[in-house]
């Protein structure tokens, strides 16, 4: 009789994360195709339409990249926090609080130079994201409360605050029954660079480089790795592990808050529940697939942005937009399963 058993591999291929992603993506396309076939749609037609409408022209490509901005920024934030081996499930809330902070500063300040105004509002978004993670950060470093739970909880709280603001104090009378805050003035809209591509994409590139530098090339990144590896070694080395965790969390939250600011200033132009369509959660998938590597997050985030644009346009031919979500989620599943095979090995065992 033959039995299959699992063995841990001693050496793991360095590019394994990349291969896992690639194979995971192929598996996801395959699963998507089956679902399309069940619905009597041709997968080839559907996917080629998706491809054409998401990257086929300057306009569609810029729409895709605009969608990628919040995924990338929030994903980068998650990866920075993961350097100290902590998880940020609260990017969604941080995106919203970032946007709320932008609106708050917009309402309460008077700045004449538009470029300075925009700059101040972007900073406000970053600070808003940091504020959102402040309480989880404090409870983590002071009392050791699990950050997965607290950051998740802040999502619900911030969402509640958003609903309250847009139905109450900030409700725009002109929007009739639709709950939303008033639009911000055109002078603070983020400019576009090519086609519809928002200036936010340049910020996104800059922050990808920043995150890459911070994690991999800076003294702070090194200190975060040691603190994440062993709290005792950190103490021994004179590294304040709690301080590093605290700062990493504030920076990571700020990245997501900045995503909210860019979303408001370039897409929605007002605070509403539409500031984020689950970007903060998809960003967790993006960060996890890439093994928390900033450059990978940039690429996978862009791909996922294109996927969701592709998903929303194929609705026109009667295919549900959820096909894009299915592909995103299956990519993570596929990638995790493949990563498992890079880490473990299955062997046949003969029993006599």
């Amino acid at each position, binding site marked *: 009789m033959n039995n299959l058993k699992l063995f841990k591999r001693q*050496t793991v291929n360095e590019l394994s994360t990349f291969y896992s992603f690639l194979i995971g993506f192929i598996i996801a396309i395959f699963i998507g195709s089956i679902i399309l076939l069940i619905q009597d749609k041709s997968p080839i037609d559907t996917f080629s339409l998706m491809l054409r409408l998401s990257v086929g022209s300057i306009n569609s490509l810029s729409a895709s990249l605009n969608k990628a901005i919040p995924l990338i920024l929030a994903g980068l934030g998650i990866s920075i926090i993961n350097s100290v081996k902590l998880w940020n499930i609260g990017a969604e809330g941080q995106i919203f609080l970032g946007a709320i902070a932008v609106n708050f500063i917009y309402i309460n300040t008077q700045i004449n130079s538009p470029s300075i105004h925009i700059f101040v509002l972007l900073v406000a978004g970053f600070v808003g994201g940091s504020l959102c993670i402040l309480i989880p950060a404090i409870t983590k470093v002071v009392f050791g409360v699990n950050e997965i739970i607290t950051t998740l909880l802040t999502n619900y709280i911030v969402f509640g605050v958003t609903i309250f603001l847009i139905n109450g104090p900030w409700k725009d009378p002109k929007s009739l029954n639709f709950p939303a805050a008033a639009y911000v003035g055109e002078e603070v809209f983020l400019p576009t660079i090519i086609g519809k591509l928002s200036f936010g994409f340049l910020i996104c590139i800059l922050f990808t480089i920043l995150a890459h530098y911070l994690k991999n*090339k800076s003294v702070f*990144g090194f200190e975060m790795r*040691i603190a994440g590896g*062993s709290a005792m070694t950190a103490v*021994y080395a*004179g590294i304040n592990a709690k301080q590093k965790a605290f700062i990493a969390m504030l920076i990571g939250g700020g990245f997501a808050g900045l995503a909210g600011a860019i979303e408001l200033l370039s897409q929605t132009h007002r605070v509403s529940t539409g500031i984020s369509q689950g970007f903060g959660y998809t960003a967790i998938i993006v960060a996890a697939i890439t093994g928390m590597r900033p450059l990978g997050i940039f690429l996978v985030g862009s791909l996922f942005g294109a996927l969701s644009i592709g998903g929303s346009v194929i609705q026109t031919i009667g295919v549900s937009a959820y096909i894009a979500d299915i592909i995103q989620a299956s990519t993570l599943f596929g990638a995790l399963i493949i990563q498992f095979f890079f880490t473990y090995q299955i*062997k046949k065992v*003969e029993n*006599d």
Partner: protein
Amino acid sequence: MKQYILEAKNISKTFGNVKALENVNFYLRKGKIHGLLGENGAGKSSLMNILSGIYQPEKGSIFINNVKQKSLDPESASELGIGMVHQEFRLIESFSIEDNLTLSKSNIYQNNFKEAYEKYSEIFSLSVKPEKTISQLSVGEKQKIEIMKLIFKDSKIMLLDEPTAVLTPQETDQLRISLGTLSEEDEKTIVLISHKLKEIREFTEKVFVMKNGKMVAEELSTKDVTDDNLIELMMGNIQKSIIDKSNTAGDTKLSIKSLEYVDKVNNFKILDNINLEIKAGEIIGIAGVSGNGQVELANIISGIEVDYSGKILINNKDVSRRGVRSRKKLNLSYIPENRLGVGLAPGVSVLDNSIVRDYFKTRLGPHLSRSKTENYLESLINKFSIKAPNSKAEISTLSGGNMQKLLMGRELISNPEVIIASQPTRGLDVNAVEAIHNLLVEQRDKGSAILMISEDLDELFKLSNRIHVMFEGKIVKSFNIDDADINNVGLAMAGIVE
């Protein structure tokens, strides 16, 4: 054929391009204690991991009770009665002793745990209640529980990977008696890995020697071989140096005045009025059974523990209220006894671990130069002959000895003025011990003031200019090396001073 309970033939195993094992043979006789000797990185742990099914060999066959085993994994090895105690503890810290002992599904004392625990805690002279959680136990007690775990899951072949490395001399002696009882009364077959020839001689009947992944001596009868034979097999060459102590001491580099450290919870003095002075060019040895305040003393001098009273001066500068970093800036190095977990961060690369001491000196503002750190690691690897797969590899893929060399090298390369070395050679082979002793002496001659905490009396006598004996948080006796003799130091370690 019949005589062996376990036979491993022609076992080969490679990791990347390291040949960890090459055509290794290994035989065990039922009810006997076997010694396994070999330098750091010789392949001892790898062989044990293969016998217990954790690693799969590329080549070779394993027979248990003369039955060929097609493939072993941890589960089937355990069913066949093979159990292993690893070099590092594998206990669940937050669980009780009882839970840890009964966790295995092959636990045979399901119904009569109490009696079994009583019986074996007597054999191991262990006097703690089974309800206690592991984290409350001393290192020696943990080691006993690790071994007892094998008995509870009915292991007939017990593979013990350096169990004595963490034990005090007394505990080691106790373990010798316990293992003797197990082999005689329960017919347990035991493998003991150790770097100490004395232990191999006292514990075992048969001895195997490994060198560079090969078995260079099989089944020698322990009583028929000499220490010189064994060392020659292990090393190829013997170099025992007599250290010149005629060095002259310079200015005082480290002084400790009326140091007191209290365990606030139990209102118990862990350190009581410690006064010490170390001059440039001197090695001061601290002798004592572990757990008498040595770890706390080292942590206080290095700045890790801050809640104490008394004064600490480095180069006549009062650093009592200063942190770890400013003490390092005054050029203090600390080699902690806990290598992986304190000195080195697990889960982090060799490269990152290599710069833990000096990164804040070589940094350029916020920038950490990759090429500079790589060069730094390379100079460590060359100067201290460290074997490491590559700079990105995770630190725990290094063998115990190579980890210690990396840690030592990192702490010594910048020529520190004051060195605290805690158990610097624990668990290392004779060659590595010699290398590390030479490094310390070389540092001494360069003018470092060295405080060496050790349980190894040979080491203390060999290197120290003075020996202080610690007992229950006090320095109970001090000896100039010329007036010291092993008996008096040993008595002082037991708290007997006339």
